[in-house]
């Protein structure tokens, strides 16, 4: 229906400022309940895993494993529940830029704090 409407629009009322009509959006994609169910179940499995692993003494790697699992869970939520996998390039670029900027800020702040007492541990 939306497709038809857009077609109609472009056919009969070319906007004077727009120039040649170009796609302004991404083809809508309705994610199926099956995908949601698989992702939801995976997230629960990862939750059980991360809790179980926290009972095992891995030394420093407890934090590494827990945060790695958290990152995997976040990726699943962002890609499937938040539809980024199926979104337009604009949305994907926005999300990627945001995360990249965030990583830069965190990394530079941490670098500063780690290097202040360099060699004086």
């Amino acid at each position: 229906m939306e497709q038809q409407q857009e077609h109609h629009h472009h056919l009969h009322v070319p906007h004077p400022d727009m120039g040649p009509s170009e796609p302004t959006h991404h083809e809508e994609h309705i994610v199926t309940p099956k995908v949601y169910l698989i992702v939801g179940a995976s997230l629960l499995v990862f939750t059980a895993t991360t809790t179980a692993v926290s009972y095992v003494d891995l030394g420093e790697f407890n934090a590494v494993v827990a945060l790695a699992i958290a990152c995997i869970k976040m990726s699943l939520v962002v890609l499937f529940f938040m539809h980024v996998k199926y979104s337009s390039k604009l949305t994907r670029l926005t999300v990627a830029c945001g995360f990249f900027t965030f990583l830069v800020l965190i990394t530079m702040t941490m670098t500063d704090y780690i290097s202040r007492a360099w060699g004086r541990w």
Partner: protein
Amino acid sequence: MDSQSVAAQTVETGHIEHEHPPFLRHHFENVAQQREAATFGMWLFLLTEIMFFGGLFCAYLIFRNWYYPAFVAGSHSLHIWAGTLNTTLLIISSFTMAMAVHAAETRVRRSLMGWMIVTIILGCGFLCVKAYEWHDEWVEHHVPGLNFNPATLEHGTKAYPDDTLAPDMAQKTSVYFSLYFAMTGMHALHMIIGVSLLTILLIGAYKGKYVDGHVAPIENFGLYWHFVDIVWIFLFPLLYLISRHQ
């Protein structure tokens, strides 16, 4: 406005006033473009939220590095079962919210309302568990600024009898609990806002909105809800899990 005259005018001008659904704003070409713009705006808002919570996470990591024994002892005083239960509740609520978005897209009003109600119940369940934990921390005198008593953390706990801290390090557990309450508090505030917005959307859905192709409010609320879930996905290991064996 007189619809007859408008219809006549649109034929003259070629402006298809009545060809578009009532929720399409005039400055958008079509529904898909409007939805795309709304998604873009929502993501920009969520990125500011990432920076906001990111600052708290950053502070947590730095202070954990500085006052490591205090943070370990503080973490040991939390109930791991409560954190796991809350993570489970939130993940299921994210799933039900995704299903609500699907119901809006496929235009099924009853299932849209059903999934929204389940999401609200799960969100409230999360807040109840959180309230129970906060009450517990209040009883144990672990609330900085209100009733904090570092002496409670000097001699270890039942589960972790080896958690003995020198008085100055025990005092630093207040930093752990300050960040704990700031982070879980801001997260819970987002949950309360989320449940409130979802209730308003539910009333709209009851009146028949969002199943006529105008999915954007439900979809963007879904983005917000999933974002709040992601914040908890990181809070859970940082606060509850990573210090368990230290």
